[in-house]
């Protein structure tokens, strides 16, 4: 459904030699992430990882199922609320709190998805947007979300009862762990028989139906998976910032994650990571400057759509160097 001139295929090496190169790149990337807190402000890094995971989860839906959801903030922010509430009010340990967030997001995803997959393309986008906005208003008025104030001072607690997460280094490695697990799950889903069917549905839905695939169920399953993984990101974000607020359920947040994905490269596994990195850095940089973030965000959006639809990673894959390294893609 989504434009097919994009880099659709997966980060899949086509030859033997590039595998080595790619493994080296992957290892280097991991090493970088492990060492990063020595050089950067850990809270910033954690924020980056949360959003990167969010964008990857979102990309599972957009890049690999062709569904543009304009309402993913509902799952991200919703999970943040659920986790925050579970940890703060019920006193659950962080790992269980996050599970509550994931389950809540999946549940929300099932409801919103059930309604939205009745329509396709642009309608789907608008419906998810509207339903997420409805959830936003729900959060605005529900008791447990504490309205505009949000759920504040959420305790980070002790992981498995003994790792003190209020230490920011501990928290960082916890977040990193969750991030890696999340991305690994996404990778597995994409490169699975199920992922293959998702791809075929995106390519030609009617044909998939005539081959006997219940397209709605597959779409819904992908939607719920994406929502659950988004919930994972939202849950850890609530712990990192000890906060759950309306910002995370607002439609601007849904827009932001689209931007991250678009900027990084739709349909590339690691693109969203770069997109998120760029957007988060930009926001951090501009947060204390005069210039409104929205103007820059808006302009980046326009430029991306007009000129770099493949996104950073997508453009790289298609560049000469990228091809040499075996990242070549059709189209």
């Amino acid at each position, binding site marked *: 459904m989504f434009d097919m001139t994009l880099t659709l295929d997966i980060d899949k090496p086509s030859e033997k030699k590039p595998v080595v190169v790619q493994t080296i790149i992957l290892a280097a990337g991991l090493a970088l992430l492990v060492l990063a807190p020595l050089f950067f402000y850990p809270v910033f890094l954690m924020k980056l990882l949360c959003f990167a995971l969010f964008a990857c989860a979102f990309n599972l839906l957009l890049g690999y199922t062709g569904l543009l959801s304009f309402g993913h903030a509902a799952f991200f922010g919703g999970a943040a609320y659920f986790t925050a509430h579970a940890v703060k009010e019920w006193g659950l340990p962080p790992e269980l709190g996050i599970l509550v967030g994931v389950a809540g997001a999946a549940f929300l995803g099932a409801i919103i998805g059930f309604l939205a997959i009745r329509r396709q393309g642009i309608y789907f986008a608008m419906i998810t947007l509207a339903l997420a906005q409805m959830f936003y208003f729900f959060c605005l008025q529900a008791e447990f979300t504490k309205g505009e104030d949000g759920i504040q001072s959420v305790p980070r607690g002790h992981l498995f009862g003994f790792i003190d997460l209020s230490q920011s280094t501990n928290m960082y490695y916890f977040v990193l762990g969750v991030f890696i697990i999340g991305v690994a799950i996404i990778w597995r889903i994409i490169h699975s*028989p199920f992922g*293959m*069917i998702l791809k*075929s549905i995106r*390519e030609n839905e009617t*044909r998939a139906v*005539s081959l006997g695939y219940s397209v709605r169920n597959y779409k819904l399953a992908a939607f719920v998976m994406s929502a659950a993984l988004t919930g994972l990101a939202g849950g850890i974000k609530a712990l990192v910032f000890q906060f759950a607020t309306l910002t995370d359920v607002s439609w601007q947040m849904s827009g932001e994650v689209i931007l991250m994905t678009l900027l990084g490269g739709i349909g590339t596994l690691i693109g969203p990571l770069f997109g998120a990195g760029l957007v988060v850095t930009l926001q951090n940089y501009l947060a204390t400057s005069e210039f409104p973030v929205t103007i820059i965000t808006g302009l980046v959006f326009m430029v991306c759509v007009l000129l770099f639809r493949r996104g950073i990673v997508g453009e790289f894959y298609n560049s000469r160097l990228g091809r040499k390294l075996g990242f070549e893609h059709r189209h």
Partner: protein
Amino acid sequence: MTAALSEQNGAPRVVLSARGLRRDFGGFTAVNNVNLDVHHARVHALIGPNGAGKTTVFNLLTKFLQPTGGTITLLGEDITRMAPDKVARMGLVRSFQISAVFPHMSVLDNVRVALQRPNGLATQFWKPMSALDGLTAKADQLIRSVGLDKERNSVAADLSYGRKRVLEIATTLALDPKVLLLDEPMAGMGHEDVGMVAEIIREVALERAVLMVEHNLSVVSTLCHHVTVLQRGEILAEGDYANVSADPRVRTAYMGTEEA
């Protein structure tokens, strides 16, 4: 059950049947009171002038459209209100009038996607892609049988129109359907492909029921055991090709005065 019984009696059994099928679009009745029996191991042609309702009948039978009236039975089960994917899983598979492939997948993958479902490899989101390797041999065999070996690894979008139609037939066969519905399978095909596809159809019909819409009368005459002629949504004539083509009403409504 009943179907199996009838076969023992020697007569080819009815696998798909429609009774009193009707479909309205607004005030317009596109299909009216159509009774149709499709038999195992036979090729059944549905012909008729443009706009007679052939594609609509296909859509009704495969549940892509809901009938306004009438019933449809597949292998003894009433499928009148069933969802299209469910019907496909029961073994009723169709091709489309306008070619339907997965354009950005290779020919091999197109076929493998079709093979996944009958082999129970569709929902496993936790398994690696290599789980599908077992399907490759079967897929290659299908590809070879329709003569697409050379294009095995090309992207479907790069194929010519006719080759796409051939690929579509291959994916359809991958499901090993019990009933095959083909909407103008030869349309847009070069002469070289028509004969081959006809041969494929003849072969698959040995153990399956085939219902096809086709305007190429030479194909119809050589391939089909039974012909139903539709006109204005209603059945005008039925029988084998010789009888039907001799019917003066059919000649005026469809074939014209001379053989085209």
